[in-house]
């Protein structure tokens, strides 16, 4: 029984058993304790009990209220209330289950809406060019990293890409999941490159084994489709993100984008074909795999092959995400860089826009020993941000080095990103402004 009211009788029992006194004594003691506390409270005193807490009287003012049924106003009379403040020892003991928790400072919510607005403001053409460069980079990296890109899946990509209107939405969840997986498996680029040799053959096995399982099990086929589909899915991520804007825009632009993607995919496929047929090690390896599989297929029964094929996916779930990572990290990296760019851009925008000071958090008077830099340190956490105070009070301050005593300085409320003391860019900007103002 976790909850349940313990009566004073039970407390008396516990105390008597603990301190080896009769229950009668314990009862008398408890009564005396309560009456003593009451008396002290009635005489207006504060009662403090070591390791337990303090009892205090609090006067609650009379207040007006409304009868819920009749709507009549009633006056609730004031009353005294006994307030108990637990001692730190008791407080900590009771709060033990949550003692490990500490208050967490959260980032201010302001940046998000502003970022959105910048996104909306983006030129749709710019989005396409971004995509194009992204895809180009992707191809370059794929060509550089993996000479073993296979031709078969790319064709599928085309098919998939043509259907992506709806699949987009279907796949978004998957993509998110996969990205989570990737985030969980922090693979560095080099690592991927080294792992690639291990996983790539496996992937090819899957590809080669596909005709077999496409006959046998639709399930494994679906699974098989997945890793291949990722390239196309990744290509279509930005597409999906931009569709809200695109819906309002003319379709030709969109078709242009599709053309781009198609061309890119074709290029990719062609390069994959070329590599597959002209690179002797790849073909020989592929043949080996083929023979292995056919052997296995011969030796195993129908169900066994099915099991092994599904086992490739079931027993080796890690290689599959790893194959994904071969392609996806570049993409996520690209996304990151874009995000960074946007963040940087918004910062730059903040820097470039003339700051308007409307809200003020405090006012200070200039006294001997009180300087703008000190105020900046006090309110913004870094003395370099004094320039913003100066900007806000420019009308009153002819010379920032010599401010008349008694001048009322208003401390403006600033965007938290502008005065991020941990961001070297903010400090750099402030220092630039400092140079501008001091040299004037």
């Amino acid at each position, binding site marked *: 029984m*976790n*909850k*349940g*009211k*313990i*009566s*004073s009788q039970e*407390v008396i029992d*516990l*105390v008597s058993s*603990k301190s080896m*006194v009769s229950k009668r004594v314990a009862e*008398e*003691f408890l009564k*005396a*304790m*309560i*009456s*003593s*506390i*009451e*008396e*002290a409270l009635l005489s*207006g005193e*504060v*009662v*403090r*009990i*070591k*390791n*337990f*807490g303090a*009892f205090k*009287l609090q*006067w609650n003012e009379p207040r007006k209220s409304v009868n819920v049924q009749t709507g009549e106003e009633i006056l609730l009379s*004031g*009353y005294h*209330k*006994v*307030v*108990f403040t637990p001692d730190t*020892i*008791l*407080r900590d*003991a*009771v709060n*033990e*289950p*949550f003692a490990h*928790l*500490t*208050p*967490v400072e*959260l*980032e*201010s919510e302001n940046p998000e809406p502003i970022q959105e607005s910048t996104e909306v403001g983006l030129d749709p053409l710019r989005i396409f060019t971004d995509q194009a460069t992204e895809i180009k980079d992707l191809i370059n990296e794929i060509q550089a990293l993996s000479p073993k890109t296979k031709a078969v899946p790319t064709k599928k990509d085309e098919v998939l890409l043509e259907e992506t209107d709806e699949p987009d939405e279907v796949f978004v969840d998957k993509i998110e999941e996969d990205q989570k997986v990737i985030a969980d498996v922090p693979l560095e680029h080099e690592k991927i490159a080294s792992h690639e040799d291990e996983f790539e053959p496996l992937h090819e096995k899957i590809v080669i084994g596909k005709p077999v399982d496409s006959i046998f099990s639709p399930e494994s086929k679906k699974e098989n489709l997945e890793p291949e589909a990722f390239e196309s899915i990744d290509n279509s991520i930005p597409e999906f993100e931009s569709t809200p804007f695109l819906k309002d825009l003319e379709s030709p632009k969109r078709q242009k984008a599709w053309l781009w993607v198609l061309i890119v995919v074709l290029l990719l496929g062609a390069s994959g074909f070329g590599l597959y047929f002209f690179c002797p090690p790849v073909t020989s390896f592929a043949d080996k795999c083929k023979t292995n599989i056919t052997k296995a297929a011969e030796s195993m029964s129908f169900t066994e092959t099915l099991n092994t094929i599904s086992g490739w996916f079931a027993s080796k779930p890690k290689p599959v995400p790893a194959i994904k990572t071969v392609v996806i990290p570049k993409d996520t990296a690209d996304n990151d860089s874009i995000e960074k760019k946007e963040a940087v851009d918004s910062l730059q925008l903040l820097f470039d826009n003339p700051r308007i000071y409307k809200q003020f*958090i*405090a006012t200070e008077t200039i006294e001997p020993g009180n300087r703008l830099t000190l105020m900046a340190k006090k*309110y913004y956490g870094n003395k370099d941000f004094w320039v913003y105070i100066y900007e806000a009070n420019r009308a009153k301050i002819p010379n920032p080095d010599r401010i008349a005593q008694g001048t009322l300085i208003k401390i403006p409320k600033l965007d*938290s990103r502008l005065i991020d003391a941990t961001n070297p860019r903010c400090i750099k900007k402030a220092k630039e402004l400092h140079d501008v103002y001091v040299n004037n």
Partner: protein
Amino acid sequence: MNHKELIASMAIKLNAPKSVVADLLDVTVATCTELLVDEKTIGFQSFGNFEVRKKEERLSVHPATQIRTLIPPKLVVSFKQSNILKEKLKDLPHNE
């Protein structure tokens, strides 16, 4: 009235040495603390209830700096006076 004064007044009432009273008070406090740590409610007849309440986590915003802080949940001891005590306190005059 602090701890010592309380013990003194109780010793007079019980007609017992202060050391005994102090020991008993310590035991009582320890018992009550244990019970409260177990999240049990203690009700003293004619005095009031000690109860453990959970304060949910909340977001607080510093009015000056606008820094938003997530305050974690916590367990606190709350005391609610009984009606008998409230009636007794009614006679008290209050000075504003």
